[in-house]
């Protein structure tokens, strides 16, 4: 399935990408997506390592590792928020 990946703030800068398309075998969860991204190695493995503090939103709703993904989903990865 095809996903739209979005990256914000520190993650956007460190990974060097703000928006990209990504293809993943279905069925898949957020955990599967993170595994596939870590397999890219380098900063991807470092920044998305299991102990790192980041958040995931699927279709603009907060998600967790077990959230299932579907064709066309918008998946955003970002650090804990700091607005206000």
């Amino acid at each position, binding site marked *: 399935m095809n996903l739209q990946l*979005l990256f*914000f*703030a*520190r993650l956007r800068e460190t990974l060097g990408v703000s928006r990209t398309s990504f293809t993943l075998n279905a069925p898949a969860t957020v955990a599967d997506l993170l595994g596939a991204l870590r397999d890219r190695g380098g900063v991807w493995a470092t920044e998305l390592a299991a102990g790192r*503090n980041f958040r995931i*939103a699927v279709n*603009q709703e*907060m998600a967790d590792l077990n959230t299932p993904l579907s064709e066309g989903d918008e998946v*955003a990865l*970002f*650090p*804990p*928020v*700091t*607005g*206000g």
Partner: protein
Amino acid sequence: MKITVQTEVFDLNAEVTALHRNNPSVGAIATFLGTVRSESGQVSEMALEHYPGMTEKSLAAIVQEAQSRWAVLDATVIHRIGPLAPCEPIVLVAIASAHRGEAFAACEFIMDFLKTRAPFWKKETTTAGGQWVDARTSDESAAQRWNKP
């Protein structure tokens, strides 16, 4: 309900007047204004990034949750994005209610959840360069206390 994400500065008088709407049931308006801090003058600029689309949705959900808990007559949330100078306003939350207890509670609730749930990120520029602001655990604690009975 008015929820806006904008680069432009806002006018406090105009926002409070629009919120009150000459509604004689309003007796209390609580507002919170967040401004760019620069302790010891170290911060020369604060840049605000956000997640267009999700930001507005999450702010609307937070305001609706406040409206379900307290008798809110009207609410305004304005959050600025882009580069801001020290002392510039970042965020305005204004709540109109009949009585002050509800206005204060709804205003503080919205700020606590905006701080911990709305997808905004701050990057400070100091003499040491640019650095992303870390999330504060005290903000998460502030949001958690609203779960208590």
